[in-house]
C-alpha cells in the first residue's frame, strides 16, 4: 500500500517536472523516459523468460519507420503513424517470433541480431522508406508534449509488467526461464507464452520508436536499427534487475544519468568509462541492482566478493 502511494507520488512528480525544469531537463527527460520504456519492454521477454533478444532494435526500427512513412510520405497524423508502426512491429513479432523462439541461448540472440540487420538492409533499399537517405518528419516545438507522451508510455509498460509479475501468464514465463522442458511437461504452452511476451515487448518498443522519430524529426536506417541501442536496453534492464517490475526503470534512470553526466563533464572519455562500468557491473553485481540491495543488507560488502567466488571458474 505504502509502495503504491509512493509510486503514484513519483509519477505525479515526474509528470509535473517539465513545468519546473528547463528545456535541457525536458530533453534529457524524454530520452531517459524512452530508454526506461525500452528497457522495460526488453524486460518482458528477456527478464521473465531469459530469452535475450537483440531484435528489439528491429521493432524499434519498424515503429520508427511506420511513424515516419505515415507522416512524411502519406501525410497522415501522428497517432496513425504510431499505430502503423506498432502494427508492423507486432506483426513481425508473430511471424518471425514463431520460428526464432525455437532457438535457445546464443543462437536465439544471434538470430534476433540477424533479424535486425536484415530489416535494416531491406529498409535501406525501399523507395517508400527513403532508401538509405532517410525521411524527414514535420517539425513540432512541443517538447513538453513529447515528455508527457513518453512518461505515459513508461507508466503503461510498467503497469503491464506489474500485471505480468502477478499473473498466471507471468508465472508461466518464469517457469520457462527456470526450466523450459519442465514447463512444457507441466502443460504450459511455452510457444504461445513466448510469442505473446515478444508481441508485448515489440508493441512498447515500437511506440517508443515512433515518439522518438517525431521528436527528433529525421530518421535513417543506421539510427533506426541501431544495434548499440539494443545493447543499451539489455544493459539497463540487466543493471536494474531483470525479471523485476521496477528494476529496469530504476536501472535505466541511473545509467542515463551517469552517461549524461559523463558525456557532459569529461566529454571524450565518457564512452570509455561507460564501457568500464559495464565490465565492472557484470563482474561485481551480475544480477542487477535489485539483487545488490538484498545482498548488501544480508552480507554487506562481502556481496561483491561472493559474486566472484560464485561465478569464477
Amino acid at each position, binding site marked *: 500500500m505504502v509502495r503504491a502511494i509512493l509510486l503514484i507520488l513519483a509519477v505525479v512528480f515526474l509528470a509535473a517536472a517539465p513545468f519546473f525544469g528547463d528545456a535541457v531537463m525536458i530533453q534529457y527527460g524524454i530520452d531517459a523516459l524512452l530508454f526506461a520504456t525500452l528497457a522495460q519492454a526488453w524486460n518482458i521477454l528477456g527478464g521473465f523468460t531469459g530469452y535475450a533478444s537483440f531484435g528489439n532494435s528491429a521493432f524499434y526500427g519498424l515503429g520508427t519507420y511506420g511513424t515516419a512513412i505515415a507522416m512524411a510520405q502519406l501525410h497522415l497524423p501522428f497517432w496513425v503513424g504510431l499505430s502503423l508502426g506498432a502494427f508492423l512491429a507486432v506483426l513481425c513479432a508473430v511471424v518471425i517470433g514463431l520460428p526464432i523462439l525455437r532457438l535457445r541461448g546464443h543462437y536465439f540472440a544471434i538470430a534476433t*541480431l540477424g533479424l535486425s540487420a536484415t530489416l535494416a538492409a531491406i529498409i535501406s533499399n525501399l523507395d517508400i522508406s527513403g532508401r538509405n537517405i532517410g525521411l524527414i518528419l514535420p517539425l513540432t516545438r512541443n517538447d513538453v508534449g513529447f515528455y508527457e507522451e513518453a512518461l505515459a508510455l513508461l507508466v503503461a509498460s510498467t503497469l503491464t509488467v506489474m500485471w505480468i509479475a502477478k499473473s498466471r501468464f507471468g508465472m508461466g514465463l518464469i517457469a520457462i526461464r527456470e526450466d523450459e522442458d519442465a514447463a512444457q511437461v507441466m502443460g504450459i504452452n511455452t510457444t504461445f507464452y513466448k510469442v505473446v511476451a515478444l508481441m508485448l515487448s515489440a508493441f512498447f518498443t515500437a511506440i517508443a520508436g515512433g515518439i522518438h522519430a517525431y521528436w527528433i524529426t529525421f530518421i535513417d536506417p543506421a539510427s533506426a536499427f541501431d544495434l548499440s541501442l539494443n545493447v543499451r536496453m539489455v544493459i539497463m534492464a540487466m543493471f536494474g534487475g531483470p525479471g523485476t517490475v521496477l528494476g529496469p526503470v530504476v536501472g535505466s534512470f541511473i545509467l542515463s544519468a551517469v552517461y549524461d553526466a559523463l558525456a557532459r563533464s569529461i566529454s571524450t572519455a565518457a*564512452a570509455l568509462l561507460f*564501457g568500464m562500468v559495464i565490465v565492472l557491473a557484470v563482474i561485481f553485481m551480475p544480477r542487477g541492482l535489485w539483487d545488490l540491495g538484498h545482498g548488501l543488507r544480508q552480507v554487506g560488502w562481502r556481496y561483491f566478493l561472493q559474486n566472484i567466488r560464485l561465478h569464477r*571458474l
Partner: protein
Amino acid sequence: MLFAQIMVNGLLLGGLYGLMALGMALVWGVLNIVNLAHGAVVMLGGYCVYFLFTGAGIDPFAALPIAMVVMFALGYLLQRYVLNLIIRSAQLNTLLITFGLDVVLTYLAQLAFSADFRAINPSYAGANLTWMGVTIPLVRLGAFVTALILAGLLWALLQRTRLGRAIRATAQNLVAARLYGVNPAQLYAVTFGLGAALAGAAGGLYGMVSQVTPYVGAALTAKSFVITIMGGLENPFGILLGGVFIGIAEALAAIYIGPTFTDAISFGLLLLILVARPARSLRGA
C-alpha cells in the same frame, strides 16, 4: 569471364573472412563465450602489423606471427583476469562483458592511435598475376593461403596434441578436462589467447587489403557471427568453407542483385540457416 573473376574475388575474400571467424568459433565452441570484442581484437592485430611494418620495417607477412604472439598475450590476460571471473554466471553476462570490453578497447585504440585510417601498404600491395584472363591480387592470394595454413595448424593442434585434446575435452565437459591434469583456468586462458592470436593474424591481413581504424571492429564481429553460424563450431576447415560461401554469395549478390543488397543477403542467409536447422542441434548451446 566476368563470372569467373567474380567467383575468384569471392573465394579469396572468403578465405580472409573465414580466418576472421576462426578465432570466434574456437572461443565460442570451447568456452561457450560469444565474444563481441572479437572485431576489436582483429583491429588491434591490424595496428600491430601496421606499426611493425612502418615503424620497424618488418614485412607485413613476416610481422603476422609477432602480432599473433602479442594478441595471444592480450587474449590470455583478458580471459585469465577478467572473463574467468564470470564464466559461470548467466550466459547473457558474457555477452555484456565482452560488449563492454569492445567499447573499452575501441576507445583506448582511438586515444592511442587517433581516428586516422592506416593502410598497410608494402611495395607489392597492388601486385597481381593474370591467369586465363582472371586477375588474381597477390596479397589476397597470400591472405587466402595464410588462412589455409592457420586453419591447418589449428586443426593439427586440436587433433594431434595433448593440449588440443584437453581443449576439446573442455568443450565437452569441464570435469573431463581435469582428467588431463590441466588447470582449467589456464586452459581457458590459453584457448581465448589462441582465438585472439587468430584474430590478430586476420587483422594484419585485413589492413593489407583494406585499412584499419579504431572503428572497423563492429562490422567484422557481425561478419564473423554469420560465418561462424554457417560453418558450425566443430571443424576449422568448416569455418573457412563458411567464409568462402559468404564471400562468394556477397560477390555474386553485388553484381546480380545490387551492391546495396550484400548485407541483406548475408544476414538473411544467417536467419534462414538458423531457422531451417533442426532444432535439436541448436538446443542448449
